[in-house]
């Protein structure tokens, strides 16, 4: 079984977001970087599928040279191969991103044979376009099930469960080759082992130059929304606050 996972490097802001002066990006000088938790779970799922069925897992990203860091994280977890579509770090819209990813998948498949499964996050952490996976799957004429939180692959068929609002699940069954977008919670991603980390440090990164064909929507600028400003009332510094807390709960009418 050959599995490909797509991940996107994003900044990991802590308590609040600070923008660059041109308002087109987040100020990242003091920030770490990550991939969306959904994508982390997609990477874990790819590794588990290969552990179960044999084959190989490939991780693919479109991003700046530094996105190598996110590829090495995936390699450290157990992915076999990493591909970087290198950009200058500017914002690529979802159509441009999907086009470049689909072209890269085609090129990789022409080299080494088809992928049975393409995995994506349900949405990227930063832009949240809810579409790159769908567009790639469409370009490659593969069925895609989105927002899944459970997966079993058997005899060339993927059975995927998607949570329904308010509880319950809907179940989909699609023949491979197929594509899936994954929600956090489908698994608990492993911590990379020391050996994995060492291996990842030395692993080659396969670089390709993507072609930028803009499609939209086009980013104009970012704005940090106004937060409600509350004066925090400090009730106290120990268990002696209990009566005050219960008074509040009583006033709100939430006591039995």
């Amino acid at each position, binding site marked *: 079984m050959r599995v490909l996972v797509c991940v996107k490097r994003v900044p990991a802001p802590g308590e609040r977001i600070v923008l660059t002066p041109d308002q087109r990006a987040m100020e990242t000088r003091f920030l770490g970087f990550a991939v969306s938790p959904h994508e982390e779970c997609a990477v874990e799922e790819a590794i588990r599928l290969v552990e179960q069925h044999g084959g190989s897992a490939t991780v693919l990203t479109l991003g700046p040279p530094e996105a190598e860091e996110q590829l090495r994280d995936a390699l450290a977890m157990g992915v076999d191969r990493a591909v970087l579509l290198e950009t200058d770090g500017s914002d690529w819209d979802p159509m441009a991103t*999907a086009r470049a990813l689909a072209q890269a998948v085609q090129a990789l498949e022409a080299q080494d044979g088809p992928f049975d499964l393409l995995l994506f996050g349900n949405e990227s952490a930063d832009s949240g376009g809810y579409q790159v996976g769908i567009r790639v799957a469409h370009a490659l004429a593969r069925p895609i099930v989105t927002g899944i939180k459970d997966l079993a692959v058997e005899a060339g068929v993927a059975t995927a469960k998607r949570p329904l609002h308010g*509880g319950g699940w809907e179940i989909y069954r*699609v023949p491979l080759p197929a594509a899936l977008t994954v929600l*956090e919670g489908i698994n*608990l991603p492993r911590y990379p082992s020391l050996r994995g980390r060492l291996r990842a440090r030395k692993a080659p990164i396969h670089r390709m130059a993507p072609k930028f064909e803009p499609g939209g929507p086009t980013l104009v600028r970012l*704005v940090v929304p106004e937060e409600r400003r509350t004066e925090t009332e400090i*009730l106290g510094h120990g268990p002696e606050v209990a009566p005050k807390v219960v008074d509040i709960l009583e006033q709100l009418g*939430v*006591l039995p």
Partner: protein
Amino acid sequence: MILTLVDHDRGQVARNTWEALTFARGLAERLQAPLAAMVVDPGGPGPLDVWGRYGVSQVIHVTHPELDEYAPDAWARALEEWIRTQGPVAAIAPGTPRGNEVLARAGARLGLPMAANVVQVEPAEPAYRLTRVRWGGSLLEEAELAGEPRLMTVAPNMVEARPASQATEPPVHVHTPDLQEAERTVKVVDRVEAARDRVSLVDARVVVGGGRGVGSAEGFRVLEELAELLGGAVGCSRAVTNEGWRPHSDQIGQTGTRIAPEIYIACGISGAIQHYVGCKGAKRILAINTDPEAAMVAKADWAVIADLHQVVPAVIQEIRRRHPNGQG
């Protein structure tokens, strides 16, 4: 024409559809265009009087014997056919899992851009100027959207649903899509019903949340006890799910659940923006944290600067003292 796709599950209309209709009506009024609603459901075109109350002047009832269950490519096919033949200037859906994926699929089929989770739109030419949410709601993006029609979904719980000042009586147009084999592949083939034994995080009036400060899976026992006393639910941060202390279904935040209780009691949670977007719908927040500088403390209405393992048991004891016959 402004077309709005109705999100429903077996006839039950998703609440966010009313927000999308209100948003679409605002655009229709500015462009002096009629407002149409598309309902994909062989069971019927839905509540016509209610569509009318939201100002819909035409209902497109999509029906096909194979559309008995949700099938996103078939829904997208119907949307695409209608767009190609009727040329609406915009097609809008609620930013729900179904709304987002059907519009993205329509965008892929038509080769058009799609903007997800829009909160505001200015119908300028050649490109609409819009505002959409990023980072699950922690950041806004102003963007330009071209293409005919403009494809957009409306961010859930950000636009107030309002009936129209004048109700309409929309005629129903029946449309049967010409489904191809590939559009039948992705379809709900089975369901598992929800277990209804606990108060759900989404609906709970009280949520007791725990973060890394709780320290262990066992540490959550006191939070459970408090939640139970208050008829509420337990939630947690991602640090906690990552540790495997709680299931992901308890996670609050950008990649977890959005809550809207009367009060959120956040214990040992630092208040990262990805957590806060999930709990900012709470009417009131009480933070219990050893660190007075924690962001959660700054964002709370009330805070207790102390060890949660001392404060929470004391609160439980005080509730029991005042309400000896209460639950739990």
